[in-house]
């Protein structure tokens, strides 16, 4: 099978899976097809899927960012802290975004310029950035933001479609173009495939990695702020544990954890698969650990199935000759 064929079959598999899930949801719940529910389906995980977009680039580049959820929390807490200190909300938002950018640059510095493994650096970030968020808000829950901020996160601006969903759509398009059409995207793949060869070809490996981590920090911060707007209040433990969900989405999308392969179409399908599955289970009153177990099993199965199929196919061909 050519790489192309394989990719096609991967996305085909996700598409088939998606169809099955959607049909099951429609059959099982009369509420599923409501416009409100469809919007909710995105809205409930919107921050995670926004971050999954940039995580796709990072993983294709052969790195990982475990600190995204903590950066989300950090940005929201910086925003809340500034707001509480008397800053106007727009300034507080900028402050939150800058905090995320700074965190991303910090990660990027250690990974790109010092050459530490990103797993270790961002594991430290996962603990450390959350710590800074906690220092800022301690045990308080900070709310009372102006109405427009809460509206931004909660109210639909195009029918039931919220600002967050629009931002996601725009980001998706941007990331698709960057990854599959721009020089940066090409370099992301090249570095993910063979870092040394990229370096020997004059690729500025360090600045590409730095750019990605900075972007990851910034987008995670944006997602954190959108999360704050959706919830209307901020606590130190915001978004804890989101990183696993985000990485799950990307991996299910067919992106290799070792870098160098995967595409955004797969990730887009994987987002739809997971969101619909979650929503369907939620409407069927399956929650908590059962829900995560099912998604865990799906993750394994979605890689196992094509492998098994391939094996069988090979065996069958083997018998024929």
């Amino acid at each position, binding site marked *: 099978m050519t790489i192309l064929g394989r990719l096609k079959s991967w996305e085909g598999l996700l598409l088939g899976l998606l169809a099955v899930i959607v049909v099951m949801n429609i059959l099982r719940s009369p509420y599923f097809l409501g416009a409100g529910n469809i919007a909710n389906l995105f809205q409930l995980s919107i921050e995670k899927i926004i971050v999954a977009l940039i995580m796709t680039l990072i993983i294709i580049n052969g790195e990982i960012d475990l600190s995204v959820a903590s950066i989300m929390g950090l940005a929201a807490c910086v925003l809340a802290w500034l707001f509480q200190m008397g800053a106007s909300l727009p300034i507080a938002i900028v402050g939150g975004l800058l905090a995320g950018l700074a965190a991303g640059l910090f990660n990027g510095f*250690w990974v790109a310029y*010092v*050459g*530490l*493994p990103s*797993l*270790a*650096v961002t*594991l*430290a*970030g*996962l*603990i*450390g*950035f*959350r*710590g*800074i968020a*906690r*220092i800022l808000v*301690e045990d308080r829950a900070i709310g009372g933001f102006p109405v427009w901020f809460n509206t931004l996160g909660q109210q639909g601006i195009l029918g039931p479609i919220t600002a967050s969903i629009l931002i996601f759509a725009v980001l998706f398009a941007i990331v698709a173009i960057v990854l599959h059409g721009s020089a940066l995207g090409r370099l992301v793949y090249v570095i993910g495939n063979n870092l040394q060869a990229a370096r020997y070809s004059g690729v500025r490996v360090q600045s590409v990695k730095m750019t990605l981590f900075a972007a990851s920090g910034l987008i995670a911060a944006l997602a954190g702020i959108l999360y704050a707007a959706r919830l209307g209040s901020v606590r*130190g433990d915001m978004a804890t544990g989101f990183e*696993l969900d985000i*990485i*799950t989405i990307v*991996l299910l999308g067919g992106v*290799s*954890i*070792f870098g160098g392969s995967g595409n955004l179409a797969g990730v887009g399908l994987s987002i739809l698969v997971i969101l619909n599955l979650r929503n369907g289970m939620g409407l069927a009153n399956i929650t*908590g*650990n*059962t829900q*995560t*177990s099912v*998604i*865990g*099993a*799906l*993750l*394994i199965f979605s*890689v*196992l199935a094509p*492998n*098994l199929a391939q094996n069988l196919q090979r065996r069958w061909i083997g018998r024929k000759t």
Partner: protein
Amino acid sequence: MKWLQRHVRPEQVRELSLLLLIIVAVVFFGSMIDGYYTSRTFNRIVSSVAIITIVAVGQTLVVLTRNIDLSVGSVVGCTAYFVGTLLGRYHDLNPLLAVLTAVALGAALGAINGLLVAWGRIPSIIVTLGTLAIYRGILVDLSGARTVTTDSLPGWLVGLPRLNLMSIGGLDLPALFMLAVAIVLIFHLGTGYLAVGRRFYAIGSNPDAAALIGLPIRRLVFLAFVLSGALAGLAGFVTLARYGNITVESGRGLELAAVAAVVVGGVNIFGGSGTVLGAMLGAIMIGTLEQSLYRLQISEFWRDAILGLLILLAVASDAVILQRLRALWGRADLKIVTEPPAEATVAAGARSP
């Protein structure tokens, strides 16, 4: 220097440097905390690192083969809960049998991971990310979210954390810690001196080459996961003994702690290099930081931030030291002595067309 280069491997120097870092940390905290240099501090750190060390040893084996096991936290939870329930029901179960049950259960869960990775050809991070959720989900469902309580456990188990094997001048060496040390020694020697251990390194170092020379990669990867599961099972037993009170949340997050210990301990996350001893030092490093930070008179809220920074510094300084070492040792590697043999010129001549 020459002598050093010949007789000490870079990995060993790296372990020494980590040891040095731990000492620096201890001296630092000693100057910050009153009454730090007491046997209590020692005992505290020693008994707190037992569980994480045992898990980190298993994680090391898996990481050496260029894989990762994120399900260990759930395996610890499952075994602690299951064995706890078992002991609650059958009070006079033989202690050894209880330990074996824990290890066997862990090994079985590890075997599932191993099967899926080795024969299902699924990247380990995907498999174990999945089983992390699945094992925990099964635990919550099967247990009906009940709790194992200390009073349901037999006395010998509840008393186990207090059992000291030795006491040197007030420094207690608890049995559970010594168990961890024994595990470390066994696996350190095993990976250093047994062919099967060296093959873990080979696989992680260059999987293609391992396949070409015909190493049984699948069986070895499977074995690594089984061992990791078994050790997580053992850690589950220790968890049960230490905390007594086991909710279905027990062991959650241990996977990240184990990976942190392994990474700080200098095991290459992409496989092929690092040692079990290093992983233990990593666990002790993190344990020292954590336990010392609890005692530092700083706000609760500062602890995580400082811990994150310290882990980063540990990894960074280790990397810088290792780079230096590699450079030094590298020179020695590349000394290729080519004594020009007498017939060389003749042969060269013979090559001309």
